[in-house]
């Protein structure tokens, strides 16, 4: 087991100027489950492959524990790519199916037996070691395949979108299995996905990348509660955060008739950067329906209502007198609000929402960075 350190690691593909991964600095703790997430082309897979030794590193260094592996061949790095291959061999016993790769590596027999025994115990397969895969249930076979990676006792597990070829339902059950197994094993794991829900549900910490740059690395809740910039704010959370540019004046942020109080410290920061606008974000659950007369409300015309049983979401667009300006300044196509289920508004209705005090996120219009009061 080991820590993993990306030390200003950079990858520039031949023939391009812009780095695919730009001076990535990331310290992954021993035993941690770290998820790399971001839209396609953000550099997450490239980062993982740099760690695996599949991509060259053009600048900086990568360390596993104290070892500098920057230019080491993949097989010397003591890592395992998981779930790349999970076919079982029908004529070999469960023990052989789990241990055959160790045989190739020249591991002594006693050592193989010990490791297979340990992995089997962990996977509840001890009593099946002498059987053929045919005699096992589907779930047990699956665990044998996992055992194959586990017996290698690598310092780091690497997983590159292992669930992407599954349908949505299976993805959910499998991600729980992987996460709980990783916690039992305690082996440092780096996991790549484009799906922010997967990232949030599996990772101890999540690193968000965009355009080759690390945006933020934090616990799932940390990312949700304190996104460090507009990109993270928009990327993390499902449904997404509502984000729009507001005018700042006299301690209020306004956009048409929408009106939100701004802490003095934020106003000061906005003024300090010579600006009179601020990017304001509020999550769907921060919106509460208000009476039409209430000041500072955002009138929304309901396009779609999503009833999930435990929740309901309203998808709509600005509908007040300043609707056009509001829509222009909105970063997304729609306004999303969580409402009481079983009592949700109808399509075509107009509702006035207000933003719950203190739940707003402020970002600089100049840099996109978070402004803390």
């Amino acid at each position, binding site marked *: 087991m080991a820590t993993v350190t990306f030390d200003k690691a950079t990858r520039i593909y031949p023939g391009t100027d812009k780095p695919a991964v730009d001076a990535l600095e990331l310290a992954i703790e021993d035993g941690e489950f770290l998820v790399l997430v971001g839209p396609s082309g953000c550099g997450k897979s490239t980062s993982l492959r740099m760690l695996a030794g599949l991509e060259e590193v053009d600048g900086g260094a990568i360390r596993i524990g104290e070892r500098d592996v920057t230019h080491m061949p993949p097989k010397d790095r003591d890592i395992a790519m998981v779930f790349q291959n999970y076919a*079982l061999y*029908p*004529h*070999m016993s469960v023990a052989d199916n789990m241990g055959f790769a160790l045989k190739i590596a020249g591991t002594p027999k006693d050592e193989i037996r010990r490791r297979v025994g340990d992995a089997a115990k962990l996977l509840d397969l001890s009593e099946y070691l002498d059987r053929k895969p045919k005699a096992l249930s589907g779930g047990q*076979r699956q665990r044998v395949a996992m055992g194959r990676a586990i017996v290698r006792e690598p310092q780091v597990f690497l997983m590159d979108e292992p669930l992407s070829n*599954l349908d949505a339902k299976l993805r959910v059950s499998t991600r729980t299995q992987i996460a709980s197994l990783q916690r039992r094993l305690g082996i440092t794991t780096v996991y790549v996905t484009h799906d922010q829900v997967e990232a949030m549900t599996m990772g101890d910490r999540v690193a968000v990348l965009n355009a080759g740059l690390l945006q933020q690395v934090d616990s799932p809740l940390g990312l949700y509660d304190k996104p460090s910039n507009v990109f993270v704010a928009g990327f993390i959370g499902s449904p997404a955060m509502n984000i729009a540019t507001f005018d700042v004046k006299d301690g209020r942020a306004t956009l048409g008739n929408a009106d939100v109080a701004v802490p003095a410290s934020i106003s000061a920061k906005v003024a300090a950067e010579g600006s009179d606008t601020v990017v304001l974000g509020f999550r769907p659950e921060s919106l509460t329906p208000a009476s039409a007369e209430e000041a500072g409300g955002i009138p929304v015309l309901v396009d779609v209502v999503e009833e999930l049983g435990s929740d309901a979401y309203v998808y709509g667009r600005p509908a007040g007198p300043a609707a056009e300006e509001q829509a222009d300044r909105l970063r997304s196509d729609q306004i999303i609000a969580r409402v009481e289920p079983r009592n949700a508004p109808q399509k075509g209705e107009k509702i006035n929402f207000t933003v719950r005090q203190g739940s707003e996120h402020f970002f600089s219009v100049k840099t996109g960075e978070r402004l803390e009061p």
Partner: protein
Amino acid sequence: MELRILAAPREQQALLDLPWDMPLEQWPEWYLVALPRGISRHVVRFTRLGRNVYALKEIVKPYADREYQMLRDLARLGVPAVQAVGVVSGREAPDGESLDSVLVTRHLQFSLPYRALFARMMRRDTVDRLIDALVVLIARLHLTGFYWGDCSLSNTLFRRDAGAFAAYLVDAETGELHNGLSDGQRAHDLDTARTNIAGEMMDLLAAGQLDESVDPIAVSDQVVERYTALWTELTEWEAFDVNERWRIARRVDRLNELGFDVDELDIVTDIGGRTIRVQPKVVDPGHHSRRLLRLTGIDSQENQARRLLNDLDTYAAVTEQQGEDEEIVANAWVLDSYEPVLRAIPRELRGKLEGPEIFHEVLEHRWYLSENLGRDVGLEEAARDYADTVLRHKPDELAILGGTSAEADTTQPFRITWSDLQ
């Protein structure tokens, strides 16, 4: 969702008749052809439409689309791979439940999965030849910038090639096309190949389908050794004294001998002009098969071409036409030797093996027959005897029929799907 069949018009028509509203696993027998399958993580079935056999693989849509595109790209690059026919998506069961997409590929005629080969022969040298073919395939793929990601015997099909084999890529699901591969990508690909091949060999050994003298680990080590040697010959800089310029020609000859043409050679002379360094830049496999195709129009594998070209040379010598124009001699050889041999094979036996392979076997047969009879046997006589005593007893390899669904467990290794999760 609507059912969408992305394929060439002719094949689209035929594909329409299949029961797409059923999971592949539940398709009734009469739609299917029993072919031995490799170890696959997906449901794979074979079906016959018209004169062709098709392989169907059930897989989520983005993967189906991606692999389809990848196989098309590989075909454009001239890589030996199965031919992608189409993707069927938007499938729905009668109860409205949506089904995964299906990637359709055309089954490679005369191709053999390794399990079918081992069901009949299990000799050490067969294993060596399989490995050689696979190594050439991996090197070719790496030269074009293709990272396989899951190289194994299961993901490869083999065609007979004058006593040896030619390997074809069947599964490009994990593949990636790059401008060029890093050393790390090549090393990892090779490491995966090594582990998979060892596993597959150990399984054959456990099944009693492999000669005891074959050591799976030694075989898998051989993959790495042979690949390294081939890769070095294909790509390494070679330095020598300016007086040894003949070594340039020798390097080209060696590459030709390995079956590669050199399209571009990088030559650098040092400042004093005493040392020359040479590196092949663009090498193109299929040296012999291209030459045979150009001369005779016969489409063959590399070793078959080598064999046929040798016979062509012998023919030129025997008929004293060595000074003649190559094309003219080749034309005469086709009329005097190649075609008469194939014509001597009864029509019903022609589906057993490919033409060039039959010709190769007849040449071998003629040699043995002449030795036994103590006289020189003519080609046509050898061909007739070969058809009766050898070819007639061979299984039909146009589409090899090995395993049946009745003995699924022995011919088809386990597939694990995530849906098996408890």
